[in-house]
Each structure stands twice: as structure tokens, then as C-alpha cells.
């Protein structure tokens, strides 16, 4: 009597469980199943659970039947603590009343299998929202990255526009003043003021630098001209790298060598010999400075250069054989830098 009551109590208890639950043997023989599980499976397969193994296979191969649809989205709220797919499988279904259910198959021990169904409608809605938000944030992140890459360029354009507007304003003022003077027949009286304004505006248009300027120079030409300005000629021997990144590294090394050659050895010529080897450019930079050196201590400049080169996969050696030479190896396959200003 006591035993029978106990079994009834157990059945009653699992029937009152709001989710579906089914315990079965490994071969699928049902040990215990509650009403909710039978109701759900009936809706999906057209019959209650007769054999749990067969029922799970039917659910796995479920084709939409008008009463429910199987969900396959990758972002579905899976249980992160149960990553082992061989002992733990999950299926998701949405029923016509819009409720979403997760079916989980779990091997409890070597003889028993549990299938549990839980309603996750709210969790599903939130996961869907989270997924959409993630997509939106990824888009924003992309836009932000492109903004970061182009911010200096955008600013440059802004500066150019501001300068154009200034010149435009000045021109406008001159024209207005001249028109007014003509209209009021006071051109002769205001001739001096007008001439001054026009001269100043025209002056702003002309490039009147006293020494020289480097208009939109390339990496090489500006460095060569600056070197010439301080009285040290830079001579390049061999073909220079093609990629801008490799050129930037080459010129960083040439700048450091040039600075040291002029500052410490009073050099008047810097020779940059470039030879393509198997996978890299081999660069030797030497000068005609009059100082004999057998050993040098690397200062901030050379250390910073070494760090920059090594970060990009290039290398630096400093040779002290009476004079100081820099040996730089720059790989051919450097990534191109992102666009900037």
C-alpha cells in the first residue's frame, strides 16, 4: 500500500512539474514520463512517448508540421555548463502559441536517460534581442574603426576648408568695399585703403616662402631636402622597397643614422646601400664622418628604432668598425598600413 502510494505520489509530483520530463532506459523503454512531456511530444510528433529513443530521433529529424517549428539559430540560449555533445544534446521548438521550448537529452548514468523540456520563451526573446544588439554593436564598432583610421584625414580636410573660407571671406570683403566705393563714387578717396586690402589678399594667395618649402612631398624627397639643408647629402644605392610600410621603416633607420652621423661625427654624406636578398631587403647605412669609434652605447634613438623595427619583423645591427654603420633587414612581406593623415 505504502509502495503504491509512493509511486502515485511520484507520478503526481512530476505531473505537477511545469516542464516536460521523461526518464528512460538506454534502449528507450520509458521508466517515467509526465503529462506535459506527453502533451508536447504529441503536438510535435502526433503521438505520446512510446519509446524515448525513437521519440528523440523523431524530434531530431523534425520537419515543420504547422503546429511547431524547429529552431536552429546559432545564438540560441544553450546551457554553457553542458558542452559535451555526446552526453548532452539540445533541440529547440517554437509552437503556434509562440512559446519556445528547449528539449534536453542527458545521460544520467550508464542505464538511465533523461529528456527534459523547459519553456524558454522569455530567454529566447532576450537572446534574440541580444543577438540583434550584438550585430548592431559590431556595425558600430566597424564604423568607429573606420572613423579612427580617417580622423586625421578628416581633420586635415576640415582645416583646408576653414582656410579656403578665410580666403573667400577676405576676397568677399575686398569686392564689397570696391563695389561700394564705385557705387558711391568714392573710389579716389578710398584708393589707398582698397589697394592695401587687395594687396594683402593677393599676398595670401601667393606662395612667398623665403627659403624653400616641400609641397606634398614623398617620404624620400622631404628627407633628402632636409638633409641637404643641414649640409649632409644622402646617397641611395640599389632599388628601394615598393611597399609604403617597408619604406617607412627604411626612412626611420635613415633618419636615425643621419641624425647620429651629423650630431656625433659631423658627416657630410650618408650612403644607403639596399640589396634585395631572398625574403628581405638588406640595408647598410654608413657615413663619411671623421670620428673613429670602436664601441657605442645605444641611446634612446637607436633603442626606439630597434623596437619599432622588431615590432614589424625587421631587424637592426650596429657595426662599429672605426666608423658606425647600421645594418637593417626589412622583410618583403610587410602588411600595408591603414590609411591615415
Amino acid at each position, binding site marked *: 500500500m505504502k509502495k503504491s502510494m509512493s509511486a502515485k505520489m511520484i507520478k503526481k509530483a512530476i505531473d505537477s512539474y511545469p516542464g516536460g520530463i521523461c526518464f528512460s532506459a538506454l534502449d528507450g523503454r520509458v521508466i517515467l514520463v509526465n503529462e506535459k512531456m506527453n502533451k508536447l511530444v504529441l503536438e510535435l510528433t502526433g503521438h505520446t512517448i512510446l519509446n524515448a529513443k525513437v521519440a528523440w530521433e523523431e524530434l531530431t529529424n523534425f520537419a515543420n508540421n504547422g503546429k511547431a517549428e524547429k529552431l536552429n539559430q546559432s545564438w540560441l540560449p544553450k546551457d554553457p555548463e553542458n558542452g559535451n555533445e555526446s552526453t548532452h544534446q539540445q533541440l529547440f521548438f517554437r509552437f503556434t502559441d509562440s512559446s519556445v521550448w528547449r528539449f534536453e537529452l542527458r545521460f544520467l548514468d550508464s542505464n538511465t536517460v533523461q529528456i527534459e523540456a523547459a519553456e524558454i520563451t522569455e530567454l529566447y526573446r532576450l537572446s534574440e534581442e541580444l543577438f540583434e544588439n550584438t550585430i548592431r554593436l559590431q556595425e558600430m564598432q566597424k564604423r*568607429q574603426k573606420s572613423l*579612427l583610421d580617417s580622423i*586625421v584625414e578628416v581633420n586635415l580636410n576640415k582645416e583646408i576648408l576653414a*582656410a579656403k573660407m578665410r580666403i573667400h571671406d577676405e576676397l568677399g570683403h575686398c569686392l564689397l568695399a570696391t563695389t561700394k566705393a564705385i557705387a558711391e563714387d568714392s573710389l579716389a578717396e578710398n584708393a589707398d585703403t582698397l589697394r592695401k586690402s587687395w594687396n594683402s589678399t593677393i599676398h595670401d594667395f601667393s606662395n612667398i616662402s623665403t*627659403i624653400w*618649402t616641400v609641397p606634398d*612631398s614623398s617620404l624620400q624627397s622631404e628627407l633628402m631636402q632636409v638633409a641637404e639643408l643641414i649640409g649632409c647629402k644622402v646617397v641611395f644605392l640599389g632599388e628601394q622597397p615598393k611597399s609604403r610600410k617597408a619604406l617607412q621603416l627604411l626612412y626611420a633607420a635613415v633618419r636615425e643614422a643621419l641624425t647620429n652621423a651629423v650630431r656625433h661625427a659631423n658627416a657630410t654624406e650618408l650612403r644607403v646601400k639596399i640589396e634585395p636578398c631572398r625574403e628581405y631587403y638588406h640595408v647598410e647605412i654608413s657615413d663619411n664622418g671623421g670620428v673613429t669609434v670602436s664601441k657605442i652605447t645605444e641611446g634612446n634613438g637607436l633603442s626606439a628604432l630597434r623596437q619599432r623595427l622588431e615590432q614589424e619583423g625587421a631587424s637592426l645591427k650596429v657595426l662599429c668598425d672605426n666608423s658606425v654603420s647600421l645594418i637593417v633587414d626589412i622583410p618583403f612581406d610587410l602588411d600595408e598600413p591603414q590609411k591615415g593623415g
Partner: protein
Amino acid sequence: MIQVLVVEDSRITRDSIESQIAKSEKYVLYASIENAANAEIACLRGRVDLILMDVCTADEESGLKAAAKIKQYNPKIKIIIMTSMPEHSLIQKAKTCGCNGFWYKEYGSTALMEVCDRVMAGEFVYPEDTPVIRIGYSNSSEFTSREFDIIRELARGRKYEEIAADLDITPNTVKYHIKNILQKTGYQNTLQLVAEVVEKRLILPKY
């Protein structure tokens, strides 16, 4: 005559500065270049008295870094940092590099040549503060320096744990600051915040 080196990658701005120098009776243009990395070389044989240095120059070379190197070997050369970026930390960085002046191209009412005159007379000429920029519901002046540190780290794409390690604070403190910043600005997430501060050039992660 005071020899001036102009480091500016915008052609039209450079022309405008050169024109002002040419009109002046005290200053003469020594050279005008686009890339700050070449400025130290231009100063090597001691003919430059004053440098007008842009912050963001050609090939992404930083004018501030170049200024620091130049000051190390040539402390007598006067350097004025010029920028149109309202980035909040630039003034402090320029001071740390030992620069003698700072001039906003688009903000403020002081003319460049006036700043040059005062710097050459031995003054350190700095704007009192960075321009105030509206970020969400808040003004940039309402952010604390620690909050700026955190926004800068976010703009560099750092995670909370990395920010905490960099700034020597706990991840919870990072979250606390971020919560405060979002409350002030009214943004829903840090991405919106970072997009806004970068777009308005209040933070320049590369400089």
C-alpha cells in the same frame, strides 16, 4: 631675424602661416616641412630659433614626440604646438615635452604671430583650457582626468581587465567610472560614447 621652421602637413594652412611669417619683419622662414620626424634633422646644425609644430603630421608622425626629441638636444629652440584638435590631453603633453607655447588653429582669439612674439620674449603661452565640446548631455569640462584616461583606453579597444591593469585600478573601479560617464552623457553603451568622442576629436588614440 628669427629663423622659423614650420611643420605642417596641410598645404593651405602651411601657406597661410608662411604668408604671415613673410609679412612679419621679425621672422624669416627657415624651412617648411610636412613630416615631424624630419624636424629634428632640420634643427641639427643649430640654425632654427622657433618651430611651429602641428600635432598630427604626414605619415602619422607625432609633432609632440618630435618636439620632445628636439628639446632634449636643443633646449634653446622655442617650440609652439599648433592644432585644430580639441583633444583634452594635448596641452598637458606639450607642457611635459617642454614646449614653449600652444596655439589652437580654430579656437580662441589669440593670433599665431602674437603667440610667437610672446614666446620669443621668454613667455610660456598656453590656452587656459581645452575647448569645451558637447558629448551627449554633458560638456567635456565635466569629465575628470581619470574618466578621460578610461575613455582613451576604451578608444584604443582595451578590455575592462586590461584598462584596470594599465591604470593600476580594479575592474570594478573601471566599471564604476564607465557607469558614471554613461550616466553623465546619457549614452547606452561605451561604443556610442567612444564614437562620439573620437568623431569630435576629444580623444586621439594614436597621438
